[in-house]
Structures are given as structure tokens and as C-alpha cells.
């Protein structure tokens, strides 16, 4: 059943918070979604619709209350925490909105972190890989700066490089340009598209920025915890500017 072209498959995924308590709420109601290798996808939707929740499930930071989540042909429901952590480290890279980097480390060390965690590579190999990734996002001259001494846009680019360190199948970005000015946001976005083209890494990017969303191959819209029907089946006018 492992389809080489499918990176991720969700079937009827539900997520409730505060399960078992009086304030239990279901946030996601039966999500079906399939991401194919090398896709560059925008995840949009109104605030509170469940985008971050969905991203956390896909990123294996949280588990669905119901439904099936298959990553690279492995049904994650059958994995224990250790295996989940391992799969997360190997298959998924994250780029968050704020405070993406670990401030105690330099840009280069931040990029090296996932490799160091894995503890399976010789030092010079880690160094070389981190350098080439930083070069890919155009930050070679900043490699020895502490994370805090970089601009917001530079930090996001370092985060992208770090997300790529383990050469994951999928990069998840939750509003990666959310607190950047338009120009920096553009640069970061360009960078992600560049990486997508070069490495064939699948990107799933949460964004409120419709201009950016339109530059993606596909837009998945979440409304009230459900995936809205594809844009093509509605009028383009449905996509209002926020």
C-alpha cells in the first residue's frame, strides 16, 4: 500500500481537546487529505479553524483522537512514542512563526542540531552539511552569529535550512512569514520554493497571505475543522482577501 508518490495520507482524522472533561471540544472533524511527493501546498483558513492543530497532528507532535495518519507508508497509530519521535526526526522538518531557533546556539549550530540529536554522523560531515544548507538559503556569512543576532527573516531562513538538515520528506511551516515585512516574507518564500524545486521536498505552509498562497501549487483551505472543497469547484471569488 506504500505509494511512493504519497508522502502523507489522512483519513477521517478528528481531534478533540480536553477529552473526558466537561469542556471537551472537537476541533477537527474528519479530515481527509493526501500530500504527494514534491508538492508545494498552502494551508489557509480563518483564524481558529484548526490549521495549527492539523499541522501539529501531521508533524506528530500530537495524536489524532480518531482516524488514520499515514506518513511515508507507516500508519502512525501503531507506533509508540519512541518510534514517533524517531519518525518525526527523520521525516519532518518544522518552521514556526516565532522563536524558531535556539538562542544559545549559532546559526550554523542550529542547522546542525537535528544531525547532532541523531548522533550518527561524524563531525566534519555535520559541519559540511550545515554549511551547504546555510549557503543554500544565502546565509554563509552569518553562520557564526548567535541566533538572537539575526533579523527575523534571516532566522526564518536558518529555520528552513535546519528543517532540511535530515533531508525530510515533508516540511511543515506554521505562518513562517507571519511576523516578517513584505520584502523579507517574499525572500523567505522564494527560498522555500527554491528548496522545493532543488530537493523535491514537500512543503505544507500555513499562511494568511493570499498573494503567497496563490504562488503555491495547491491551496488547502480549512474551515471550521473541515477541509473546504477545492477552489476549482467554487468560484475564485470565494477566496476573500483577509
Amino acid at each position, binding site marked *: 500500500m506504500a505509494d511512493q508518490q504519497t508522502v502523507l495520507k489522512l483519513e477521517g482524522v478528528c481531534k478533540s481537546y480536553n477529552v473526558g472533561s466537561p469542556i471537551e471540544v472537537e476541533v477537527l472533524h474528519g479530515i481527509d487529505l493526501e500530500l504527494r511527493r514534491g508538492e508545494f501546498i498552502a494551508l489557509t483558513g480563518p483564524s481558529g479553524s484548526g490549521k495549527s492543530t492539523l499541522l501539529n497532528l501531521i508533524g506528530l*507532535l500530537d495524536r489524532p483522537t480518531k482516524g488514520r495518519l499515514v506518513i511515508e507508508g507507516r500508519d502512525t497509530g501503531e507506533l509508540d512514542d519512541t518510534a514517533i519521535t524517531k519518525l518525526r526526526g527523520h521525516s519532518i522538518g*518544522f518552521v514556526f512563526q*516565532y522563536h524558531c531557533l535556539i538562542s544559545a546556539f549559532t546559526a550554523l549550530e542550529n542547522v546542525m*542540531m537535528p544531525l547532532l540529536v541523531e548522533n550518527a554522523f561524524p563531525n566534519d560531515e555535520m559541519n559540511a552539511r550545515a554549511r551547504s544548507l546555510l549557503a543554500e538559503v544565502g546565509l554563509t556569512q552569518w553562520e557564526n552569529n548567535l541566533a538572537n543576532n539575526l533579523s527575523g527573516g534571516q532566522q526564518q531562513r536558518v529555520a528552513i535550512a*535546519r528543517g532540511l538538515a535530515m533531508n525530510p520528506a515533508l516540511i511543515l511551516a506554521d505562518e513562517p512569514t507571519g511576523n516578517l515585512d513584505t520584502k523579507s516574507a517574499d525572500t523567505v518564500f522564494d527560498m522555500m520554493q527554491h528548496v522545493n524545486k532543488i530537493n523535491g521536498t514537500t512543503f505544507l505552509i500555513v499562511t494568511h497571505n493570499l498573494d503567497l498562497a496563490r504562488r503555491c501549487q495547491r491551496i488547502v483551505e480549512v474551515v471550521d475543522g473541515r477541509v473546504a472543497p477545492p477552489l476549482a469547484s467554487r468560484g475564485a471569488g470565494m477566496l476573500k482577501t483577509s
Partner: protein
Amino acid sequence: MNHWTPFEWITAIRFLKEGRMQTIFIVTAVAIGVAVIVFMSAMLSSLQANFLKRVLTTQPHIQLIPPNEIARPLRHGGPGSIVAAIVQRPAQRIRSIDQWQKIRTQLGEWPDIVTVSPTVSASALAVRGDASRSITLTGIDPDVYFKIVRIPDYIVSGQARVSTEDILVGLELAKDLGVTLGDKLTVTAANGASRVLTISGIFDLGNKGANQRSTFVALRTAQTLANLVGGVTSIDLTVTDIYAAEAIARRVQSATGIEADSWIKTNAQFFTAVAAQQSSNTLIRLFVALSVAFGIASVLVVSVIQRSKDIGILRAMGTSQGQILRVFLLQGGLLGLAGSIVGAFVGGAGLSVWHAYMRQADGSEIFPLILEPSLFVTAVLLAALTGVAAAAVPALSAARLDPVVAIRG
């Protein structure tokens, strides 16, 4: 699989380095605690070692003495009658140990006994012109006795020679009587016997009272003066294991039937004092260790909260709970280690300085300072372990952080 990988070390060290103020303060706190412990322990063990050395070079480990004379009432009440006898304790004469030569040979064969030295002690009067002083006359066989009490080490003028015409006297006695090396001294025993002896050596036992009273003569001379020809009043022993002295004394006593006192028994007060010191020392150590542990724990608790977002990011990039746990355990251990290395150094240096300035009334050093490397090593290792233990609770809470919550902040 090796759990303590470079990741844990690098991350722990970086986290400590980044939280500079917290790290400096807690390392200082640990250092102060460890310095106090090192200072106190080294001082106490120096004092004890010094006392032991003094005791064991001026006293035998075990001394055999003849039994007390007791009065045996001759009248016994017949059946049905009660006799209320008032038994007076008889005056104690100087008596010899029966068959002491046999005992000497017998004990000399025991593997745990090193030296057997028969001695005669008696009180006497030392007279020089108009001056006289009462003294304790100890008749010795220098070959063996000097192995127990190292008189030759204490000689300040002359030499430790005791032929039958010689006497060794203490510094204060020589001063009191106005005599020096080579002078003659009349020694009169309690029974009236009297000899003229030549001062062949003057010693300083480091104790005024002992220097005033103690004198040493040849065994034969003392036997004559005490009217105890062929006899001895005590047999002094040294043993291989000084702490087994009491047990050996008991065995000697049952083997020979003669009362044997070990240095442990005669210095019982010292051992009580040592035990009391040691237990208060242990209590102080315990409380210092506890406050160090709580200090480290509280710093790490705050650090976990400050770093929850870092922890979340680390978890998102595939760091396991175990790795996060070890990062924080390691921080605790490193804080303990760094603090204790500084503290051990400061404590040792502080004690050396204190020792250099503290003087006895006469300007000599109060006691020889002993700084055992093992004390420092133990202190550092224990502090590092305490740090790891103290980090347990914060490290567990860090490992259990829900990454989703941690990242959202």
C-alpha cells in the same frame, strides 16, 4: 547505545553558558558550601591525625600492669548469719609482674604484636644541691623502648644514651634544678635507696608536665632503686593495627592473666570527642549538601520554564524525552562539579592561609596541616552526584513538557 552523546553535553554546556548570571550565582553558592565542608573536614582530620600521632609516639599501644592488691577478709559468716565487713583497700606497693620473662617471650611470638618492652616505673626525688623535685623514674631497655616512645627524636641536647649510670631528663626539670648536660644528679627512691646519675641527654616531649616529671634510666638502675631486682612493673606493647589494640589487649589479658590496657581505653575521652565531632560534622555536611541541592534544583526549575520553547523546538526536531532529561541532569551535575572544584580549591587555600596565621602562644604551628587529595576528590564527586540528583525533578518536568504547549509558549 551510548546515552551521553555529544548532543547532551553540548546542549547542557550551552544552556549553562547562556544563563550566565544564574550559573555564576549557583556555582558560587555551591562553591561556598563545598569550601566550608572541605575546610572543616581537613581541619578536623588534621587535628585528629596530629593527636593520634602524639599519643602513639609517647605511649605504648598496650600496657600490661600487675593486678591491684586486694584485702581478703578472713572471717566468713556461718550459715544464717550476715557479716557487715568494712574492707579497707590496702596501700599499693610496687610489685613486679610474675614471670615477666616468660610473658615477654610468649607475646613476642604473636604476629600482631610488634614490640614488647618491659619497664620499671617508680617515683623518686631528684636532688641537686638545695633543689629537689619529685620525678617519675622509668627504667627501660632502650633497644625496644625507643621503638615505642621515640625519645631520640625528642632529644634537644646530648644523646639518648642510657647506661646504668645515665639519666635522661626533660627540659623543664633541667631548668628547675639548674642542671645541664653532664651534670650529676642524686636520685633517691621512696624506700631510701639512692644513686648518683649523670645527665646524658635532655629531651622535650612537647608537654611541660611531662618534661617536668619524666626521667628515663636503664632498666637495671631502676630495678635497684625500686628494690625490685629482676622484676618489672609493666610490659609495654606496640601492635601492627593500632585500631585493633583493644581487641588484642583483651586477648593478651586472657592469655597471660595480667591486666592489659590499650591506648583506646586509656584515651576513651578522645574517642568520645572524635565521635561527637564526627557526628556534628556529618550533620553539617548533610545540611550543606541539602541546601546546595535545593539551590541547584531551584535554578533548574526556573531554567526549564525559561527554556520551554527551546525544549519544544528540540522535541519537534526529533529529540527524545530521554535526551531532554539527560540535558538537564547533566546541567545539575556540571553545576555541582564546577562549584565543588572552585569550593575545594577555596576551602583548601583558606585552610592553608588560616593555618599560616594561627600560631600557638610560643609561635609554633598549632598542628601540622594534612590536606588529603582523597578529601578533594570525594567532595567534588559527591557534589557532582548531588547536582545530578537535585536536577531530577526539573529534568523530569522538562522531559514531560508537551511539545505542542511548549512551542505555542
